[in-house]
């Protein structure tokens, strides 16, 4: 293997890290006030968790708990760049077929097990055990071999070029669990998490709250907060009322109307973290009518996305034309995405010549239904009839996976690497290709995106992917997700990170 090349790529990584560190030190927020020690931070979650083990982590709620008790191997910064966390050094082969991680020395899990190469290897082997049915197993499917090549050095060999892989280490898969605790608790590890993170698990009252206390031995230095409480509060109105009454410090994914109100009243801090993914109308390419490109173009031209954004999101979301949210901003460039043009839509439908009647599957969540109804009316204006078929969230996922739909309102919260937003969905062999879209040109681009670690080259590849998607239209993009949290103004040190998760290790409370 070409080692001189890999060294230079490592050097590039390191210089990026240093630049980021320097930026963080001189940022005005950090200079303005010294963090105060102590206090309890309560965060309102939409639901109680299935468990506190990365094996079962799925939504924002679980990831929030994950970033409280665990550390990821890498992290992302405000600009969406990968930065070191448990791994201080990261090398990749120029063709992205292997990666080498150097771990931070002296880091201990909360049970005093050292977080070394053996622990990291054990962690990945556990996640890759098919019997345990890890929810993000697809992220690790490309690994051929993972081994400890030194006490603090882990080498990961891939089956094929995988430039997208490092980003996985900043997500759920990178949350390293204590191998001792996994052995000790067995199946009950779900309720007894042990990580290296800024907070130590203390207590879980099921259906109500989870308490974490400060990790006094944290490798990064003193943790400001005394404790973090994650509270399960299914009702949105109650979450907002609790925030206003001072019973809660942070509401994640706040509803648009409350964000607008908070911006006006200026009594709450608004943290707009941007996002990684998008919402869209997904098209089953094998279904009648929509298999014809002219019909898909007409449907795209008929949707007035600015109005839709105003109706559904009070204008807060950004209209989308690509699969890449603001956290992947450089990739958000496209030529030829169909603009709102009802006359053009009618013209295309006339060329198609047959009446178009659609079954429009949608989530039954109020805002999703509202969006579906608005789109239904927009389509009706150009002469397309559609019937909305509502599903609960589990049924919607099932219907999508089995391709038992014609067109469907759907969403993808997005990944940190652009590949995560396109490969599995648009590659003809993609594991989550729910549209049946198949285009050799697209396959070639997506494979090429995995085969190079050169950022400039990848940028150009994903822009071509955007252009191809705009031409073939398996998805009609609607808006980019927006992860907006509202917080009690006493909460300081909040950093907007595009995955929408609060990093509680940095947070402190003013008194």
């Amino acid at each position: 293997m070409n080692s001189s090349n890999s060294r230079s790529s490592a050097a590039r990584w390191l210089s990026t890290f240093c630049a980021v560190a320097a930026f963080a030190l001189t940022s005005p927020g950090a200079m303005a006030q010294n963090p105060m020690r102590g206090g309890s931070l309560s965060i309102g979650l939409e639901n109680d968790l299935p468990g506190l083990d990365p094996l079962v982590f799925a939504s924002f709620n679980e990831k929030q708990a994950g970033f409280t008790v665990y550390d990821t191997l890498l992290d992302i910064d405000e600009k969406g760049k990968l930065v070191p966390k448990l791994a201080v050094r990261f090398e990749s082969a120029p063709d992205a077929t292997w990666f080498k991680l150097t771990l931070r020395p002296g880091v201990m899990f909360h049970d005093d097990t050292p977080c070394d190469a053996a622990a990291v290897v054990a962690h990945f082997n556990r996640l890759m055990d098919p019997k345990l049915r890890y929810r993000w197993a697809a992220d690790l499917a490309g690994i051929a071999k993972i081994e400890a090549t030194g006490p603090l050095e882990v080498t990961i060999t891939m089956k094929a070029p995988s430039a997208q892989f490092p980003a996985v280490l900043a997500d759920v898969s990178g949350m390293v669990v204590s191998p001792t605790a996994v052995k000790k608790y067995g199946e009950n590890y779900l309720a007894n998490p042990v990580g290296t993170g800024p907070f130590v698990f203390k207590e879980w009252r099921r259906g109500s709250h989870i308490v974490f206390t400060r990790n006094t031995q944290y490798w990064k230095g003193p943790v400001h907060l005394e404790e973090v409480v994650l509270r399960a509060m299914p009702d949105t109105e109650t979450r907002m009322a609790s925030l206003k009454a001072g019973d809660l410090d942070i509401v994640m994914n706040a509803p648009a109307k409350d964000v607008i109100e908070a911006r006006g009243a200026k009594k709450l801090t608004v943290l707009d973290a941007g996002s990684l993914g998008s919402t869209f109308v997904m098209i089953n390419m094998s279904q009648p009518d929509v298999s014809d490109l002219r019909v898909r173009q007409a449907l795209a031209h008929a949707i007035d996305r600015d109005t839709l954004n105003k109706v559904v999101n009070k204008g807060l979301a950004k209209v989308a034309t690509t699969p890449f949210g603001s956290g992947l901003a450089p990739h958000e460039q496209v030529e030829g995405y169909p603009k709102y043009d009802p006359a053009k839509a009618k013209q295309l439908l006339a060329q198609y010549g047959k009446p178009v009647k659609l079954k429009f599957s949608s989530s039954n969540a109020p805002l999703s239904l509202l969006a579906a109804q608005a789109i239904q009316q927009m389509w009706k204006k150009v002469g397309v009839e559609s019937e909305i078929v509502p599903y609960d969230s589990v049924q919607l996922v099932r219907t999508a996976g089995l391709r038992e739909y014609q067109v469907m309102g759907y969403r993808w919260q997005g990944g940190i690497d652009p590949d995560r937003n396109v490969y599995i969905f648009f590659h003809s062999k993609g594991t989550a290709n729910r549209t049946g879209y198949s285009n050799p040109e697209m396959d070639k681009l997506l494979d090429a995106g995995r085969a190079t670690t050169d950022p400039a080259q990848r940028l150009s590849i994903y822009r071509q992917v955007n252009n191809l998607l705009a031409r073939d239209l398996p998805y009609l993009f609607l808006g980019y997700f927006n992860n907006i949290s509202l917080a009690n103004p006493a909460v300081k040190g909040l950093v907007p990170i595009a995955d929408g998760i609060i990093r509680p290790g940095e947070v402190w409370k003013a008194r």
Partner: protein
Amino acid sequence: MSSAFLRRLQVQVVTLLVILLAATALTFIITNVLPGDAAVAILGDNATPADIASLRTELGLDRNVVVRYVDWLSHALRGDLGKSYRTRENIATMIGDRLPVTLELILLTQLIALAFAVPAGILAAYRSRTKVDSALATVSIGLLSMPAFVKGILLIYLMSVLLGWFPASGFKSLSDGLGANLHSLALPAMTLALAEFPVYMRLLRADMISTLQQDYILVARAKGLSVREILLGHALRPSSLSLVTVVGINLGRLVGGAVIIETLFALPGIGQMLVNAVYQHDQFVIQGVVLVIATGFVLINLLVDLMYALIDPRVRISG
């Protein structure tokens, strides 16, 4: 104890078993008819159809629904309610943790509702067809016609956001102290009580008015007893038969109300547990909660029957 009473007890027990069988079987079939299942809920967005099929096999979801029900029933009869698909918790433990929260909520609700309804009902009966009576009637209708979640949100905004008297949500267990515990349950119990209070008050008022027209009340008056002695000592007990029935039956109905209120106030009771289980297609959890609620419902009815005997001697004799 009389043989008539024992016979009634036998009938009740048989009824209990029939109802439990019917309720659990029906729930099993309904959750089974819903498209999508626990396998999809567990694996989520990223799973391939093959992953889902293999998990279905592992969980036994690919077996016939009757086979699965009989399997569940035979375990349940031995006291094994199974494990949650989602959290892998033992369901009996889950219910054990959460049932006390719901029971406490319901008990507090009834206490608050009765504490207001009994005096108000007596007052409305004694002063029937006066301004007091019609004012109470107006309030009742207003409270009855407002759905629980609206009352809940209004109470939250008034009592916690504006006045800051009670926490807007969340639960403190008895281990945090009785005061903190009651404080955390006050708003949800009041919300539920606001729907029960008017019913109880109107019921007591109606029965009380007819009691007050009885001859023995006239005799009592003639003997010169005070209004207080007549109302509380002579009229209240015979007037409270319907009230006791309804309070009892409502215990069961309130579990339904708790589903909404526990979700609204983020209380870790069996109502919220049931809602989550339905969303997650966590079938055994749904079964377990339905079993508990159905058992509770039937037992309460039995208890109400027994209470009659205490209040009304005629029931004891005639059986």
